[in-house]
Each structure stands twice: as C-alpha cells, then as structure tokens.
C-alpha cells in the first residue's frame, strides 16, 4: 500500500520534472522582449522613427549573432505621441507585454515621463537619443543614457572655437567677439547657458546674447544688433525655421561674421541647406550627434551601418539619430548578453560594467556610465558645410576634412 503510494509519488515527481524540463527547453527557444518607445506618429514622427531604425538594426545584428543570452530579441513598439501616451505605452509594454527593458525615446519630455513609470516597475530604461540635461539626475536607479547632451554640445562648440576656429583665423581665442543667439525654449536656453559657462571658463569674450521665440518671422533686428557689436563668431541654437531665417537675413543684410556655429537642430538638416542655398551655408559650422561623413577609423562600423540601413529601409539614413541609437543599443545589448539573466538588477550590474574606450563604437564615442548613469564618454562632433555636404571637422581624430574659414 505504502509502496504503491510512494511509486505513485515518484511517478508524479518524474512527470512534473519532465514538464519543467520541457518548459525550460521551450524558454531557451523563446524570445526575450524589449520595448521600443519612440514617437512613431505626430509632430516628432520623422526623427522618432529615424531613431527607432537604429535600434532595430542593432537588434537585427545581435539576433544574427545569436541573440542575447542565447535568446532572440523581439522589439515591441510603443508609440509615444505625447507625454501622456508615453506613460500609457510604457505601462502597456511593462504590464501586458512583459518587456525586460525599454529603449527610447528621442524626445526628452517623453523620456522624462515614461522613465518614471519604468522606474516604479523596476524595468531598466535606456535612453539613446534625448539631449535635455533633466533626463538624468532625477535619482532614477534604472535609467541610463548613452547619448551626448546639451552640455556636451556646448562643450564641443567652445572647444572647437579655442582649438580650431581661432587658430584658423590666426587669432587668440580671447580676441574673438562672440555672440550667442538662441530660441527661447528649454533646448536653446540650456545649450546657451552651457555655452556661456564654458566660454567664460575658456576666457572667451562673449559680447552679445539674445533669446528669441522659435516662431519668429523676422530676425533683422538681431542681425542689426550683432552687426553693431562687431560680433566675429555667432553661436546659434535653433530649429529649422529660425536657422533658415537667420542665415538668410544675415546674408541679405551683408552681415558676414568670421564664423557661424549652429547647435544641431536646423543646422544639421539638408532642407536648411537647400532653403538658404549652397553658397550661403558654405563654411557654416555645426555641433551635433555623429553624422555619416566621419572618419571610419574613429567610428568603426559606420560604413557597415549605412549599408545595412540601405538594405533594410531602401533609403539612405535621414539623419545621425539612427546611428547614435544604433551605437548606444549595440553597447547595451552586448552587455545584457553578458548578464546572468534578465532581472533588472542583473541587467544593471552588466550595464554598469560597460567600459568601451573612445573610437570603438559606430558613433565614435565610448561608453562608460558615471554619475546619474549618464555616459561620461559621450561626445558631440564638430561639423562644417563644405560643398553642400555636412562633413566632420572636429575633433581631429574623427575629421574627414579640415576646418576651413575664409578671411
């Protein structure tokens, strides 16, 4: 009696363990889900989608290399049309889809909103493209950012003036009269604030500063003021409309500063060059995310990235956003591959251990997370419009062409 009962017990154990094994084997073939939270529709859709493509290409590559921890990665998209929807989609990805981490987001405000939801659920949130300072530094343990920020943009601009622009003009950096103009939302204001700070530290002479609303339809008074103050180097942080307006009106009022340096935004975009004309944009400088005209030795993998991009999407990349998302995602996915599981703390531990030196990602910059989980090696690049193309000219090791200014 007791014997047959114990027999029955052994059989039951055998059966359950077989089931457990089967389930385990099934899990090994199963996929791990990550969220891709970007604005896929609405105002920001163009660059939101462009950013997401970088992540998709990174996932494709990881999957072809065997996945992470032996599992294929599936991306679940969430559409962050506005802040509220970013929150709703983050909740859906976490609760309904069961993603192990979220990647995103391009827009800083969406990122700030959605990452709070992820933090509460202890799901790692990887920001690959939002530039506002405020994204990090909110005491979030599971938020990491790989891309450079507004601060890095100002840093690159000031370094470029001191190390390249002034020598090219045969002047001491202190001699140059600098004017800062910027649109007055948080993007322009925060870049301008850091420009001022670093310029002061570098001993530069800032003689004019002017904010303006991005929806302005006339910048002639700004041009007149810069002209009156004999500004040699104009730093503008702007969207597209105001970049076009300033470049055009400066040209038409015969204002010819020795250098104009844009802070991303409108200055990095082809339509701006088309609108103002190749002769007007020629020589204009710009600091932004790494673009494609960059030294491939400094950004290994950038050529392959462009090829893969063309093969998958049947067009050339529309901006550097995809490249930067790709580089950040590759570093993170490789780290997660080395983790001991997909638990939030295992992922954190693996990501904290990332140590990629400069010049070893497709975007050029290295990856090492420091204070507030911000990538301390993230750098913006200095670029110049030469013969209708935006080419990297700064720093020297990333440059494909020399910085040239007429005087």
């Amino acid at each position, binding site marked *: 009696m007791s014997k047959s009962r114990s027999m029955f017990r052994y059989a039951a154990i055998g059966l359950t363990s077989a089931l457990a094994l089967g389930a385990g084997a099934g899990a090994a073939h199963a996929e791990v889900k990550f969220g891709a939270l970007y604005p896929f529709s*609405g105002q920001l859709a163009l660059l939101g989608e462009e950013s997401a493509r970088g992540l998709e290409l990174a996932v494709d590559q990881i999957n072809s290399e065997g996945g992470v921890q032996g599992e294929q990665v599936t991306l679940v998209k969430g559409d962050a049309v506005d802040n509220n929807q970013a929150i709703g989609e983050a909740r859906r990805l976490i609760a309904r889809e069961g993603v192990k981490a979220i990647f995103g987001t391009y827009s800083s405000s969406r990122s700030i909103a959605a990452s709070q939801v992820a933090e509460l659920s202890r799901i790692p949130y990887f920001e690959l493209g939002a530039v506002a300072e405020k994204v990090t530094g909110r005491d979030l343990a599971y938020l990491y950012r790989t891309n450079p920020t507004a601060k890095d943009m100002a840093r690159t601009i000031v370094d470029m003036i001191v190390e390249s622009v002034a020598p090219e003009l045969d002047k001491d950096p202190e001699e140059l009269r600098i004017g800062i103009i910027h649109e007055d939302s948080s993007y322009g204001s925060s870049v301008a604030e850091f420009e001022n700070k670093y310029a002061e530290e570098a001993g530069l002479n800032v003689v004019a500063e002017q904010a303006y609303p991005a929806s302005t339809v006339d910048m002639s008074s700004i041009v007149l003021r810069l002209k009156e103050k004999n500004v040699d180097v104009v730093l503008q942080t702007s969207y597209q409309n105001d970049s076009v307006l300033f470049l055009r009106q400066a040209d038409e009022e015969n204002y010819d500063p020795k250098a104009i340096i844009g802070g991303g935004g409108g200055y990095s975009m082809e339509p701006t060059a088309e609108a103002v004309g190749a002769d007007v944009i020629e020589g204009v400088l710009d600091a932004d995310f790494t673009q494609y005209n960059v030294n491939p030795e400094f950004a290994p993998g950038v050529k392959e990235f462009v090829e893969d991009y063309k093969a998958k999407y049947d067009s050339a990349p529309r901006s550097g956003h995809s490249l930067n998302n790709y580089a950040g995602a590759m570093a993170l996915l490789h780290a997660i591959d080395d983790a001991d599981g997909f638990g939030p703390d295992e992922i954190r531990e693996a990501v904290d251990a990332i140590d990629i030196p400069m010049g070893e990602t497709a975007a050029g910059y290295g990856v090492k997370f420091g204070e507030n989980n911000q990538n301390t090696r993230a750098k913006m690049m200095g670029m110049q419009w030469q013969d209708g193309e935006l080419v990297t000219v700064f720093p020297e090791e990333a440059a494909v062409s020399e910085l040239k200014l007429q005087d």
Partner: protein
Amino acid sequence: METVLQITANGLMLGGLYAMISVGLTLIFGITRVINFAHGEFLMVGMYIVYLITTQLGVHPYASLLLVVPALFVMGALTQKLVIERLRNSDEHVQIFATVGLSIALINLALLIFGADIANTPSSGLRHSVGVGTVGVLTGQLVIFFSSIVLVVGLHLLLTRTRPGRAIRATAQNRAAARLMGINVSRVYVLTFGLGAACVGVAATLVAPLYPASPTIGTYFVLIAFVVVVMGGLGSITGAFIAALVIGLVDAFAGYYLGSDLKEVAVFGIFLLVLIFRPSGLFGARRNLSHVSP
C-alpha cells in the same frame, strides 16, 4: 541714423506683411462675425499649393496666383457652406471650436502629406536686396508692401462701389433688414468667406518665396493677425492696414532696442493700451452691433 532708417524700413516691410495676412481675417470677421481660427492654416495650404506649382511646373511663384486665389476662394466658401452655416443657430463658441477643429485637422493633414520638414519655394530673385545707400529691403518685401495697399484699396472699392459689395455691407449692418430687402444672406456669407480666403491666397503666393512652408507656419503669423484685426477695429480694413504698420514698426524697433525676447512685451503692451483707451480699436465703429440682431 542709418540704423534707425534701416529699422524703419524693416518695420514697414513687416507691417506690409502683417497687413497682407490680416486683411482676409478682418473681412470675414467684419461681415460674418465668425472668428476664423483656421486662418493661419488657410495661409499654410496656400503656401503648399504655391510650393507644389513652382517646383512641379517650374513657373515663377507669382504665376501660381492664378490657381491659388481661386483654390482658396473655394476652400473658404466651402468652409462657410459646409461647416459654419450648419452651426448658424448654435452658440458662437460652437462656431469658434469648429474653426479650431478645422485648424488642427489641416495642420495634421499637412503633416501626413508633407511631413514636418520645411518645403522651400524657390525665391526666383525675390530675395534680391534693393535700396538707397545702406538701407536695403528685399524686392519680395516691396511687392508685399505695395500689394497690401492695392488689396486694401481694391477691397474698399469692391465694398463701396459694386452691387455685391453693397449687399455684403448691408448684411453686415443688419442681417434681418438685409434679408427683408431681398438679399440672399447665406449666399453673401459664402461669398464673403470665399473673398476673405482668396485674400489669404494672395498673401500665400507673395509670402511663399520668402518663407519656407511647414505644417505649422500658419501659427507663426496668426496671432499677430488677430492682434492687428482687433487693434484696427474689428472688421475695419483700413484700420487693419494702419494697425499692421504700427505693429510692424513696434516689432522692429523693440526688437533692436529691447531685444527679440522682449519685443512681444512691447507689441502686446501697446495692444493692451489700445484696448483700454479705445476698446473698439483704432478705427472701430461703435454702431456695428448687427450681430446682436437675429
């Protein structure tokens, strides 16, 4: 001194631009009493049509006037016929929200079709600088300035010297009496809305070579257009023209002396003062209370 002259020139050119855009709005408001919040989006649609015509057919931007003006007329007339007229007996707020809805729909339609990028109409030499001494303005700006005068005078003649014009004014003065005199009031409204939108068509054609079109371009202009219309005296076309020049000059001088971030303080400060001391605007007539009659 040179600087002051240049600022004055810039201010007048800006004023002409604001006048050009505001004339249609004040016409529609003065007659139909509908505040058209989709006005800026009419401008945006017009600018995209100019962009398409010039880039596809390779013609001079001004040639697209022949198509843009009728297209905008139809668009305005249809807005009145299909949207506003159906709401004629509803509350004014409902009509306002209908035009706000139209505005949002048009912006997002443009986003869907053209994307968020700018669409640049070739400037065809209109960004060429002309001037006396060191004071310079663009040819395109001069054209806008003088066209706005022609448009104002033309509309004035139309409203005072022609039969449809008289019918429009009669309807504006007293809807019920006009109907008793045998005027087809709803047709007058459709005509007026179309006419106002056609004025925006003219503005779009002249503005497009100077400013790249984008889905939100209308919102850049429309706030100032409302200021101009209210300041000039709701419905007064001459008033709107004068107010536009005042705003343009204030904008230019404040932009230089106070800074671009503070110029709107000056513009809206003056606007407030006008409203406090002349609540009906610079040229607003107090008699015009026809909208209270049924």
